[in-house]
């Protein structure tokens, strides 16, 4: 049952992508799109268990735009931060790899968290091992797990917990 639900969500996402990319409802386009997306779904669905973690409730629909807003803000901040470091002649970096702990369990939420960390100010996910994420940090502010977790991931985790857990 859970597998079927994941399969259907996969189909819907793929169909939406196809429709948005082609931008028409002509018969030929729909036919080709339909055939290829069923083929892709059947062939590759077994390799991915990400879609099985997706749940859709009103609360989640409310939280996705909020997450997107937080994420966009952090992305712009990240860019200005890195750009300033690059421009300065002294190249003010203080890099290192730190470990942080996450309370998120599902693979989908960990993926979103890792991606968000990569795109936010000065941090890059190097490896994920169970509940530990190894982060390359361009300007290390805390070497131990607690302070690093607080600085890097807490702002995303609060919202992600509401969405995907």
């Amino acid at each position, binding site marked *: 049952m859970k597998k079927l639900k994941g399969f259907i969500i996969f189909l819907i996402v793929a169909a939406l992508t196809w429709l948005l990319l082609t931008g028409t409802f002509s018969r030929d386009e729909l036919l080709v799109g339909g055939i290829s997306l069923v083929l892709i779904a059947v062939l590759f669905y077994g390799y991915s268990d990400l879609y099985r973690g997706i749940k859709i409730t009103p609360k989640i629909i409310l939280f996705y735009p909020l997450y997107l807003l937080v994420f966009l803000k952090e992305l712009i901040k990240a*860019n200005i931060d890195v750009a300033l470091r690059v421009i300065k002649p002294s190249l003010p970096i203080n*890099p290192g*790899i730190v*470990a942080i702990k996450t309370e998120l369990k599902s693979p989908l939420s960990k993926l979103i968290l890792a991606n968000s960390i990569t795109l936010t100010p000065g941090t*890059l*996910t*190097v*490896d994920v091992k169970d509940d530990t994420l190894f982060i390359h940090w361009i300007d290390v502010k805390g070497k131990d797990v607690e302070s690093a977790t607080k600085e890097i991931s807490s702002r995303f985790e609060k919202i992600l917990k509401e969405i995907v857990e």
Partner: protein
Amino acid sequence: MTILGDIFILIGSLFLFLGSLGIFRMPDVYNRLQAGTKATTMGAMSLILGVGFLNTGFLVKSIVIVLFIVLTNPISSSTIARASHKSGVPLVKKSVVDVCKDNVKKGEV
């Protein structure tokens, strides 16, 4: 709409330029990835959106392309970082801490 598109394209190319400058100036793989990923994601996003604004028939497609870039770009850079770390590419000398390496020595990772 044209002015908006032009502004987006200008911002995009500025960030792409800064990203490439960052790849030149940063001292090791990981720092280069930092500059590369962030600046190119934002730069490409802004550039493609700008093209979408200039040619409104293309706007929906450009938004889909932006979504793909946002989803895939961080994954690829994480993968490169992970691969370099596993194959032992060293961090630059002035690095402060490398928890990951300590764990490898202890046999935990």
